[in-house]
């Protein structure tokens, strides 16, 4: 039944990264395989559950400090836990969406040190001491939207809206790396974010508008 969904066997050790260099999907999968945790059936604890958490084994420190949207958050993280699960189920940041949980769709895109990453395929233990930005962290303190968010409204980028936070984050990452992209550059930079509603043209209009107005 492995094609349906794989089981999850948490409890083994994931070696945390020794450097802060970026890592690849291959590294991620290797890490997951090493931990005995399969990709498709990634697990998590539900925030707010009244039942005590069962004891876990493994040599990784579980209580982490994560820097999310400029705030240091203390959070209890399992060895094989993905950043998407930590954000959504431990920190209450549900703007980050899970569309596939297997690095295909980009709905879970967040920034790690200004670079867009699939948080469904990033182990939380590997982003200690990194700056994590989610869609909730883009607005100014006075509530002013980020230029990309405003441009997506002006161009009516979202349709169903489920992929939108990921599209926003990829656009923000692009504009931080390249403030004046061509439309072709934007198209390539955004290509890791699927939209089944097919709103690509409108999202690209939004990216170009945000670039011109920033």
């Amino acid at each position: 039944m492995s094609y349906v969904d794989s089981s999850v066997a948490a409890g083994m050790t994931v070696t945390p990264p020794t450097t802060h260099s970026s890592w690849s999907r291959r590294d991620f999968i290797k890490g997951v395989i090493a931990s005995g945790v399969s990709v498709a059936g990634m697990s998590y604890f539900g925030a707010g559950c009244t039942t005590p958490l069962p004891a876990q084994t493994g040599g990784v420190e579980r209580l982490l400090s994560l820097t999310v949207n400029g705030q240091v958050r203390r959070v209890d993280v399992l060895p094989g836990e993905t950043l998407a699960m930590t954000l959504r189920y431990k920190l209450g940041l549900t703007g980050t969406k899970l569309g596939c949980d297997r690095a295909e769709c980009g709905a879970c895109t967040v920034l790690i040190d200004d670079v867009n990453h699939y948080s469904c395929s990033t182990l939380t233990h590997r982003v200690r001491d990194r700056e994590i930005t989610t869609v909730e962290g883009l607005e100014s303190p006075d509530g002013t939207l980020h230029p990309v968010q405003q441009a997506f409204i002006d161009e009516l980028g979202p349709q169903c809206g489920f992929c939108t936070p990921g599209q926003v984050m990829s656009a923000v990452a692009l504009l931080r790396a390249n403030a004046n992209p061509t439309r072709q550059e934007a198209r390539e930079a955004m290509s890791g974010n699927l939209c089944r509603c097919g709103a690509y043209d409108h999202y690209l209009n939004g990216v170009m508008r945000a670039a011109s107005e920033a």
Partner: protein
Amino acid sequence: MADLLGKDYAPPDVSGKVTGRAKYAEDFRMDGMLFCRLLKSPMPHCRVRGVDASGALAMEGVVAILRADEVPEQAGPANNILTDEPHFVGEPILAVAAVTETIAQNAIEAIVLDLEPLPFCVDPLESLRPDGPNARTDGNTVSSGEVQEHKWTEADFEAAGEGQLPMGEPGAEWSYGDIDAGFAEASIMLDETFVTAGTSHHSMEPRTAMAYWENGKCYLHASTQSQSFVHPGIAAYIGIEPENLVYIAEYCGGGFGSKGGPYPLLSIPAHMSRKVQRPVLMRISRAEEYFLGSARPGFQGRIKMGFRDDGRITAVDVYIVQENGPNQGAGDMGAAASAISIVYTPLNMRYRGMSVLTNTPPRGAQRGPGQNQIATAVEPLIDKAAKQLGLDQVAIRHINAPTHDSLYGGNRGPITSAYMREALEQGAERFGWEERRARSGQREGSKVRGVGVGQAFHSAGSSGFDGLLVITPEGKLNIHSGVGNLGTYSYSTTSRVAAEVLKCRWENCEIVRGDSSRGLPWTLGQFGSNTSFTMTRTNFAAANDAVRKLKEIAARRLGGSATDYDIGNETVFARGNPSRRLTYAQAAQAAIEMGGAYSGHEPPEDINALTRRAVEVVAGTGLVGVARDNLERNGMVPALAAGFVEIELDLETGRIEILDYLGVADCGTVLHPQGLATQIKGGGVMGFGMAVSERHVYDRHWGLPAAVGFYQAKPPSYLDVPSEMDWHAVDQPDPGNPVGSKGIGEPVMGCSGAALLCAISDALGGHYFNRTPVMADMIINVASERSQSHGPLQVNTQ
């Protein structure tokens, strides 16, 4: 009246989508919430002889197991909640609830099943053979809700020519005119066998659901396109009265037909929650979406068409075998035939169809169900005829296109309006069809240019539903919408009709929606391209009811008769003396004091029970406008669309670069230009996927799926479509709608897919694949003059 309609605006829910504040079903949490996972069938058809769950139940943190005998059994070949006789790989057998999702999944893995494999089928034609397998133990077709066995004879199969669809006794048929006479009149004839693949919906949001119970009521958060329309059906799946269900679906992360009606899956957390007396969240994985997320039926078909010298179609004889999944399935084949009757208006026509059960995921409506498959199948053949007749591709469509007096379907019903000719004319002009056509076939290195035009249709409007609004004592207009939020923004745009009729500032309006406890009227679901037509009417009716009440209240309070009064600037005033007036706030206060119909305490008799309960929620809070849409509707409401594509095809790699796309809509009066643009372009993208990449694939030996991920089933990405796409609307009012509107969501997909396939055939100098999707290897095979790796009728090809 055009202060609001026809103008762009920011719909109220768009801000939440860009900030992440929009809450979808999986974004809700409850204290003590359990997680639920499904044990699904590993076989395409089997019987559960035994379940040993002792190991699972002994695991720490496992709370309960839910079996099929604990949930309402669904009558007939319906989609099950849980079952002990699964009919497709991935059908849920049981559910496990645990304190964490990890434990729930580990428990699933610890359950030992004893399964008896049963015969299965993944190819309809195989099932129709005299000794072919049946998808269900009691048969291979469904008629009037009953499973029947339906086989063709050896002679039927032998009668078909090599590679042609056999045509045994059909399960459905209709005809008009005299097809033999029609064919006799024709100058050329085509007799073509075709295959269109089944496809997944690929909604970005997996169909997660969360439920809990309070004071005997079930609170359910789930993902559906529709709000009120699904309410009674969901209540039935849970086994409760509709008034005991609070249904919350403020956002829906894509549905494309798969979440239009109630579906059994979302009742599982409700049943589990009732059993364990705790909130339960059930997340559905991407892989599970390929089993439980519905699918478009594939076709194996044959069409005979006769054409006069001028391109006019004299007769059509079409036979469609539909791959229906194991259950009741979908009505695509009949819808496809009706689409032919209106898109090409053949002078004579016969339709025959055979819907065959297969052990593949249950089928349901997918954007343009039937209409879009047939568009991708038939449109290239129209080009084939045009080539033989020496006609332009646009011209041959123009001569066959419907006009206002065209008739629809086998029963030849009237239609409300049709501007397909204008769509073709204006589209060809805007696209620069002539110049592009002139450079079709031009080669540069291994790349060759091609152009294509495609057409599609969907019936796009209904009537007889209810509208509800409240003018509050604060002077606000609350427009209650039961439509649902699919992402088209039509729930909002149709609400603007109420504001328009009442001459209210949009800033002063709130759309009340997303939660049945807020008092939402009975309306049709958000599907079938119908919202723009249907819900402008309901809002028009409710707003007119409010206008009447405003005038009556003014007459009662200020003297004179209601006919002396008019509305404007959110006041009701005497025509002869505008200073004799009540503000809407004052009128609402008066309505509360006067009671009766004015305050919603005496609702009209003809509204739906669900609307009646919604009125009870709002009664006494202001001036209540509520009415059933009793406006006249004379005929089917056609949404029509034409797409224009230019491509560059690489003959060495089979890669298709779509250079330009224009989609043109006949959707009546345009209500929201930007929203329409997103539909035309987004539908265009989805059509491209249908044409050249998306498909289900099932292994014929084991019945196992091979496309259970985006990378396998291939919806288009940014890089598969043009970075800019163009759109246009004919913008002519439909006489059947008070603001001239018709729907459009579905044909804007079919026309793009058809146009792309036509462009590929054009680039290849007139090779017609008679198959969707057209994959790169098929193009290379043609370019290098090799035969294809599949037979003409083969399904489940790569």
